[in-house]
C-alpha cells in the first residue's frame, strides 16, 4: 500500500512537470489558449504572497505577481502602504502522504522587497525584490516535491471584453497553497462607489467572482496566461443574511500600533475576525496601470495615453475633451437661445427620469 501511494505521488509529480513543460513550450510559440490546469500551473510559477507590515508574520497579507525578470513584483498599493518591512514569499506546493494522512513537506522562501514605484489612485505598487531570484542561479527552485520554475508574467494592457474568462490566483486567508478561481469579466467600468483606500478610484475591470482577504494584489489571468490586472477588492453585499450568520477567519493579532502580538515564546498570536459579506463582484485594477507603474520603476518613458471613443485614459485618469479634440465651432444660435433650449431640455429630461424612478412613463 505504501509503495502504491509513493507510486501515485510520483505519477502526480510527473504529470505536473509535464503540464508545466507544455505551458512553457506553448508560451515560447506565442499566444495560445491555455486550459484551466495549464493556467493553474502558470499561476503557481508566477504568483507570490506578499507579507507586509511592521514586525511581519509569515502569513500573507496580500498576493502579487512577477512582472519582470529584473525582480519586480506587482501588487496593490493598499497591501504595502505604511509598511516598513515587506517580504515576497515564494511558496512551494505541499507534498502529501495520503496513507499517513500527513503533509510531507511544505516550504517557502522569503525575499526582502522595497517599493520601487507606486500609484495610489490606481492602487498599484511595484516591489523590487532583492536578491533577484531570476538572476541568481538556479532558476529552478527545488524542494522535496515538484520543481518550480519562476516565470515573469506578461501584462495585457488592452482592456478585456465582457464575457472573457479570467482566472484569479493568490494566497487568500493566509493559506500556504496557491488558490485559483475562475470567473468572467462582467464589465469595464468607471468605478466611483468602491474604494479600498481614500484615493483609489478610476477605471476598473469588474469580475464576477468572490475574492477573499489577502487576495488583494493577486493576478487575474486571461486565457492566454497574460495578466489582465490585479485584484483590488470585493464589493460588500448590501444584503444581510437573514440568519445573521457571518463567516470567520483567522488573522494575525495586532496591537493598536499595528505591531504583531506575540506570546512568551515569541510565537505570533492569532484572532478570529469576521469576514465582510461579499457580493461576488470583484474589482480589478487594469494591467495598463501596472505597466505604467512598472515603466516608472524601470525608468522608462511613460506610455502614450490610450484613446477609447470620446474618452482619453491616461494612467488612471479619465481625461476628456482635451483642447485639441473638443468642439471648436459653436452653432449659429445666440447664447440666449442656446441657454433656453438647454434649460428646457433639462426640464423634459428630469420629468423623464422622475417618471422612470416612479415606474411610470410619460
Amino acid at each position, binding site marked *: 500500500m505504501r509503495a502504491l501511494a509513493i507510486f501515485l505521488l510520483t505519477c502526480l509529480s510527473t504529470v505536473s512537470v509535464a503540464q508545466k513543460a507544455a505551458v512553457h513550450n506553448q508560451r515560447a510559440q506565442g499566444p495560445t489558449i491555455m486550459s484551466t490546469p495549464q493556467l493553474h500551473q502558470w499561476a503557481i510559477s508566477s504568483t507570490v504572497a506578499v507579507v507586509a507590515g511592521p514586525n511581519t508574520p509569515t502569513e500573507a497579507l496580500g498576493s502579487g505577481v512577477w512582472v519582470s525578470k529584473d525582480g519586480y513584483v506587482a501588487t496593490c498599493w493598499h497591501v504595502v502602504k505604511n509598511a516598513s518591512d515587506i517580504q515576497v514569499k515564494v511558496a512551494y506546493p505541499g507534498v502529501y502522504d495520503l496513507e499517513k494522512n500527513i503533509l510531507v513537506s511544505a516550504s517557502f522562501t522569503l525575499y526582502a522587497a522595497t517599493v520601487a514605484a507606486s500609484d495610489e489612485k490606481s492602487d498599484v505598487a511595484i516591489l523590487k525584490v532583492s536578491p533577484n531570484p531570476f538572476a541568481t542561479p538556479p532558476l529552478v527552485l527545488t524542494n522535496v516535491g515538484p520543481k518550480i520554475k519562476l516565470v515573469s508574467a506578461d501584462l495585457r494592457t488592452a482592456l478585456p471584453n465582457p464575457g472573457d474568462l479570467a482566472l484569479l490566483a493568490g494566497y487568500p486567508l493566509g493559506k500556504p497553497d496557491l488558490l485559483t478561481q475562475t470567473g468572467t469579466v462582467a464589465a469595464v467600468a468607471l468605478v466611483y462607489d468602491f474604494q479600498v483606500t481614500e484615493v483609489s478610484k478610476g477605471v476598473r475591470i469588474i469580475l464576477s467572482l468572490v475574492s477573499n482577504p489577502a487576495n488583494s494584489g493577486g493576478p487575474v489571468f486571461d486565457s492566454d496566461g497574460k495578466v489582465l490586472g490585479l485584484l483590488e477588492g470585493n464589493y460588500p453585499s448590501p444584503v444581510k443574511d437573514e440568519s445573521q450568520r457571518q463567516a470567520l477567519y483567522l488573522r494575525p493579532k495586532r496591537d493598536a500600533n499595528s505591531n504583531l502580538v506575540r506570546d512568551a515564546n515569541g510565537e505570533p498570536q492569532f484572532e478570529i475576525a469576521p469576514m465582510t459579506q461579499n457580493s461576488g463582484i470583484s474589482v480589478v485594477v487594469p494591467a495598463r496601470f501596472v505597466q505604467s507603474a512598472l515603466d516608472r520603476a524601470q525608468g522608462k518613458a511613460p506610455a502614450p495615453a490610450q484613446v477609447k471613443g470620446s474618452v482619453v485614459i491616461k494612467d488612471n485618469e*479619465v481625461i476628456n475633451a482635451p483642447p485639441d479634440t473638443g468642439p471648436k465651432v459653436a*452653432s449659429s444660435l445666440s447664447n440666449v437661445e*442656446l*441657454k433656453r433650449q438647454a434649460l428646457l431640455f433639462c426640464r423634459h429630461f*428630469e420629468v423623464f427620469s422622475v417618471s422612470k424612478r416612479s415606474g411610470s412613463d410619460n
Partner: protein
Amino acid sequence: MTSPLPSTTREERQAAWARLGQESLALQKDMREQYYTRFKTEARRLRDDLWARLPVDTRDPQSVLFYDYGLNLISLRHIADDLERLSKMLPE
C-alpha cells in the same frame, strides 16, 4: 429594523426579492434604451455647443461616460445637472 416585505415565508420573500431584481433590471434596460433613442443626441448636441462657447476648464471630464452611455438614474441626474450648470455659466 422592520422588513419592507410582508411577513411571509422564506420562499415567498426570496421570490419577491428575485422579482424585484428582475423588475429593476428591466426598468434600467428600458430607461437606457429610451435615453439612447430620445435624449442622447440632443444632450450631446447641447453639451458640445455649450463647450464651444465656454472655457475648457468648465468641462467636467467625468461626465463624458454618463453622456455616452446613460448608465442609470444617477447618470441621468448628472447629465441634467451638468447641462444646467453649463447653461447658467453662459453669458447672455
